[in-house]
């Protein structure tokens, strides 16, 4: 019995010869087959020179982002049947330098991610470097940052952003979203630093609210919302109305409602005399 065949049209690039060309492959499809499956079929059976990046094959690692039929998507998350076309056009992610074929360079993307200091900042630098206990957080406070924590650094939002396309220094939706994620995290005390970082010429005020970042995110994260909230925070800061909740100190004793059957939390491994005075 003849199997259905789909035509895969790929934009290829050879860095040695600097040549760009389109190449077409016929791939037999089965139900539930993803674009990544088709690319792996090509690589194993038709053309082993095709360069792609992938890892988990289940939408967790964020490695296989590419432009599929004109929309940035994860190849492992996109089923061929879902696209509804007999020809599938695949290109490398826009706004990223191409290394070879569909593999793109994420160096600048991660540099921008690092600029916003994507980690908990504490005023007490000793405590920051020598943490001994967890920081307390209410479930509803976790809910506020939860959607942003789901980010898998796939770069789809970055590639969909029209501003990133024209302004190379623009921090981009992912980095700005992460700045917001830590600013509203009650365990974090570095909001002044981060607000100053995003209040740059190429920070959150460059956003034109196209919201293509939010529409392409495979994890349902809404960077557009985060960027607007950053702008709101900065406006409130200029008007002297900014309020940020933070926790003053780490957990010093087990939570009141810890069930009796729960194990005792580990004891501090490093003693900090400053905490003793503050308790």
């Amino acid at each position, binding site marked *: 019995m003849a199997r259905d065949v789909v035509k895969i049209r790929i934009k290829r690039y050879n860095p040695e010869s600097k040549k760009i060309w389109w190449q077409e492959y016929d791939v037999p499809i089965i139900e539930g087959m993803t674009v990544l499956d088709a690319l792996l079929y090509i690589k194993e059976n038709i053309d082993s020179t095709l360069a792609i990046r992938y890892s988990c094959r289940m939408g967790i690692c964020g490695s296989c982002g590419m432009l599929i039929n004109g929309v940035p998507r994860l190849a492992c998350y996109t089923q061929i049947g879902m696209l509804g076309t007999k020809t599938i056009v695949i290109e490398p992610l826009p706004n990223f330098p191409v290394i070879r074929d569909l593999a793109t360079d994420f160096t600048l993307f991660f540099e921008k991610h690092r600029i916003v200091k994507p980690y908990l900042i504490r005023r007490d630098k000793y405590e920051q470097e020598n943490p001994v206990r967890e920081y307390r957080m209410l479930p509803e406070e976790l809910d506020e940052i939860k959607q942003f924590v789901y980010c898998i650094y796939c770069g789809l939002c970055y590639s969909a952003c029209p*501003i990133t396309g*024209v*302004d*190379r*220094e*623009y921090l981009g939706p992912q980095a700005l979203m992460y700045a917001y994620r830590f600013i509203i995290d009650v365990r974090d005390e570095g909001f002044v630093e981060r607000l*100053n970082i995003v*209040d*740059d*010429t*190429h*920070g959150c*005020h*460059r956003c034109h609210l196209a919201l293509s970042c939010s529409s392409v995110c495979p994890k349902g994260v809404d960077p557009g919302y985060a960027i607007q909230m950053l*702008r709101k925070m*900065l*406006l409130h*800061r*200029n*008007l002297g109305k900014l309020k940020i909740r933070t926790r003053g100190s780490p957990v010093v004793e087990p939570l009141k409602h810890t069930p009796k059957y729960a194990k005792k939390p580990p004891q501090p491994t490093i003693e900090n005399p400053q905490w003793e005075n503050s308790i």
Partner: protein
Amino acid sequence: MFRESLWSLIQYLTAALLLVVLGIHILTHIPPFVETYHEGLSLESVRTNYRELGWVLLILLYVALFHGLNGIRGLAHEIIRNTRMLTIVNTALVLLFIILAAYGTYTIMKWA
């Protein structure tokens, strides 16, 4: 100079102010404040406006100029990657503001 959020705040405030002064400016050119649309554009009517509402027109001049040129500044920051070119454009915009504001002020004062 300013942080970007302060530029934005000024942009919002000038937009709000523009709505008021531009509203007044348009009202002075349409019936019933003038008898006909044509009369609203006559030299005499314009000179009367300069005389009686000169301060509104001066505010409109400065606010509209700032708002428009600041918008161009924002666009320049997005599309110009060369820092030196950006400085040239920013300086040109400041000079343009000064020249146009001075010329507009002179015109309103002269005809008032």
